[in-house]
């Protein structure tokens, strides 16, 4: 399973593991959509500690989750971003839109 979720009251933590490329992104995107819709969380924490690779497909996944959280009037933060993925996200200027901790 590339996405493992923990729910505590209205806060949702999603552990994303594996490779976030075009091949793997779709499942992760759909799973996050489903989880956000079901939990309607006030806060979503994306924990990327298990991520072994990300490219521009990962950028789209983060932006989509961010937009989705906006729709349910919640906040989103991203934690434990590995160096490789962080460099890709920075190249796209994502840190100006999304909170990385």
């Amino acid at each position, binding site marked *: 399973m590339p996405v493992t979720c923990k729910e505590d009251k209205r806060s949702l933590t999603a552990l994303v593991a594996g490779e976030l490329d075009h091949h793997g992104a779709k499942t992760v995107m759909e799973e996050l959509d489903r989880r956000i819709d079901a939990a309607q969380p006030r806060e979503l924490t994306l924990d990327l500690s298990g991520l072994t690779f990300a*490219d*521009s497909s990962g950028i789209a996944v983060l932006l989509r989750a961010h937009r989705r959280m906006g729709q349910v009037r919640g906040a989103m933060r991203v934690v434990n971003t590995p160096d490789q993925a962080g460099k890709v996200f920075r190249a796209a200027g994502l840190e100006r839109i999304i909170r990385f901790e």
Partner: protein
Amino acid sequence: MKIENQVTLEFPSRSANEGFARTAAACFAAQLDPTLEEVNDIKTAVSEAVTNAIVHAYPDTLGKVLVRLRIREGNALEIMVKDWGVGIADVERARTPLFTTGSEERSGMGFTIMESFMDTLKVRSTPGKGTSVTMLRRIARRAVR
């Protein structure tokens, strides 16, 4: 720049091959003794170019993708990714950050990432004939450990 070594991969445009292509490129690049960050830059750039061939070049069919890796004189890796797909009408526009003809799953940042992670990026494309993307990355020689 003299070619010192070369390998060519050819595969159908299945998304399962994205991981294979970037890992193969990383393994081939190992002879240049890159740092972990350099290896990651190479994997990312290859992933972007190969994904473009899979997603954009052949939107509704399976086609051939070719990846040619070369070690060039001066401790440099040259990566060429070629397809025989739909091609790009306006390459300059396609290379603009955020430009995409793709769905919500695309962010329009692929070429921007290739450009910023590699030393050079050349894109040749003919609509209806296909596209080739050639990138070069110099790897700094490190002191013997």
